[in-house]
């Protein structure tokens, strides 16, 4: 019997025959924490009595969730992380260096890697064929110290993708549709594995958007094959030597199969307060929006910003709607500046935030007021997520966000442009 991608990678990294349901101990190729989970990770690491990292070159810290720091408590946490990096020799990405998952995608993750991070959206690296998953501070602290962790090998759900996206429809609409179909716990303890002709035509940016939100269906990992597109991406990042092809065996066994035709999708929005509470954007017309937020590990890449800039060129946001854009990394920001997108966005009335998580998790840089509504390109719309339990968050694509910024109400981008 052949193997799924999850079984293949976990077999390789546990030097055994890993099958769904088995408990394995796997070597980790990359382990990291960020500024809101890192301090507890360090305390747990120290509580275990570890004095050194298993491998400083595989261990990373990121200051991205509250960067620059909004208050002295967070500043002190940042200092603690810097001190730990100095003591142990791990690499730290500082304030302004970008969102951890984007840096992992651009510079660190390789197809076939096992990656664990103290952040649930670690699954993003599944876009290039890595088995990447989020864990808590204790598990990550042990992986810091031992260079390995235990896994229950997940059953996989196969998502067979066919066709091509139509105008105004993209990866975010696909993944919101998928989560709406299988539910916010539809893949709990499982891996989502994407395949089919429709995947061949997806860009890396689109794959990262989809893998990123696998966790919103409860999944342990969201895995794409590593193919020619992956190779081209790694070459463009100056690390073509990190490429190896990865695919599931043809006779692998899946728990179930879900078929999605890209051509049948339409602009989709998740309504408050759950990600699986989805509806077509056009049905939400008339829902007034006070803030549009574009960015995050889900949709803060150059392709996303390009879509928004092209749609807003020569136009101006609705006078009562704030437009906040946070590029996911300095690489994205610089490329957006070179392409003229930032100029276009500022002219359209946008606020540009430094590379980082921005307004996503409610700490700063766009906290909502009582009763306000936000259309966000992020991945979560839970009650209280953006800093106020009396506010409402709708999730949509960059195209839907741009259309909404223009009209001041949730809008189907196909009707506006």
């Amino acid at each position, binding site marked *: 019997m052949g193997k799924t991608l999850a079984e293949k990678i976990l077999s390789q990294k546990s030097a055994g025959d890993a099958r769904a349901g088995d408990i394995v101990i796997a070597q980790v190729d990359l382990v990291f924490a960020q500024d809101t989970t890192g301090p*507890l990770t360090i305390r747990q690491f120290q509580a275990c*009595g570890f004095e050194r990292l298993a491998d400083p070159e595989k261990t990373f810290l990121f200051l991205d969730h509250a960067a620059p720091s909004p208050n002295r408590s967070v500043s002190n946490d940042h200092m603690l992380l810097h001190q730990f990096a100095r003591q142990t020799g791990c690499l730290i990405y500082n304030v302004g260096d970008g969102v951890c998952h984007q840096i992992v995608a651009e510079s660190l993750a390789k197809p076939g890697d096992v990656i664990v991070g*103290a952040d649930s959206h670690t699954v993003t690296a599944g876009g290039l064929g890595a088995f990447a998953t989020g864990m808590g501070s204790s598990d990550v602290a042990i992986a810091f110290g031992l260079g390995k962790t235990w896994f*229950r090998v997940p059953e996989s759900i196969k998502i067979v993708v066919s066709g091509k996206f139509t105008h105004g429809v993209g990866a975010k609409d696909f993944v919101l549709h998928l989560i709406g179909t299988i539910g916010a*716990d539809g893949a709990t303890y499982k891996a989502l594995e994407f395949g089919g002709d429709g995947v061949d035509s997806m860009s890396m940016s689109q794959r990262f958007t989809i893998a990123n939100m696998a966790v919103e269906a409860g999944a342990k990992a969201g895995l794409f094959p590593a193919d020619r597109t992956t190779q081209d991406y790694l070459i463009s990042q100056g690390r073509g030597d990190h490429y190896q092809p990865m695919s599931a065996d043809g006779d692998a066994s899946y728990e179930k199969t879900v078929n999605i035709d890209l051509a049948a999708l339409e602009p989709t929005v998740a309504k408050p307060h759950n990600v699986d509470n989805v509806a077509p954007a056009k049905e939400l017309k008339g829902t007034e929006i006070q803030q549009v937020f574009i960015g995050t590990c889900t949709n803060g890449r150059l392709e996303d910003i390009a879509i928004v800039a092209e749609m807003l060129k020569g136009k101006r946001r609705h006078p009562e709607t704030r437009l906040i854009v946070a590029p996911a990394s300095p690489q994205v920001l610089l490329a957006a500046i070179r392409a003229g997108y930032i100029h276009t966005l500022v002219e359209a009335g946008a606020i540009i935030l430094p590379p980082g998580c921005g307004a996503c*998790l409610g700490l700063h840089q766009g906290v909502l007021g009582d009763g306000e509504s936000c259309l966000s390109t992020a991945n979560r719309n839970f009650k209280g997520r953006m800093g106020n339990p009396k506010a409402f968050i709708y999730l949509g694509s960059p195209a839907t966000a741009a259309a909404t910024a223009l009209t001041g109400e949730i809008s189907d981008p196909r009707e506006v442009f």
Partner: protein
Amino acid sequence: MLKGRAFKFGDNISTDHITPGRLAHLRSNLPELAKHVLEDADPAFASRVKAGDFIVAGNNFGLGSSREHAPLVIKMAGVSAILAKSVARIFFRNAINLGLPVLICDTALIDEGDELEVDLAAGTVNNITKGDQLTFGKLPEVMLHILDEGGLIPYIQKYGDFRL
């Protein structure tokens, strides 16, 4: 034997309900953070919960973030176990790592305020108020070992490595 009252919650209680991002500046001040436990699901919970009490939830409890602070503040509030129809993956593992039992059972049969008695070894929940008994699913062996040692940190302190 664990003994306490049931505090009922619905489906999809996220880590943002339990310990929201807006309080991330308190994550290095856990006693202060714990005062806000589950604030966005039930603002009165933190002041009403007593040592030994149970969280009794619906489906997909603890979905969302990997923040271990979520089960940590629940444990600090004195909760002795979480009973739910189903639990999100990262939260589940985090709770066990902190020595906080998570028991999967049909919580529809429990009402707010019911007096419960949980026997972890026998796998039973006695509902003293209602006079009936529920059973819960067995944890994987590796998690039982971690729970037996009081959590992952004491487990690693004792063994220095995973022992599967």
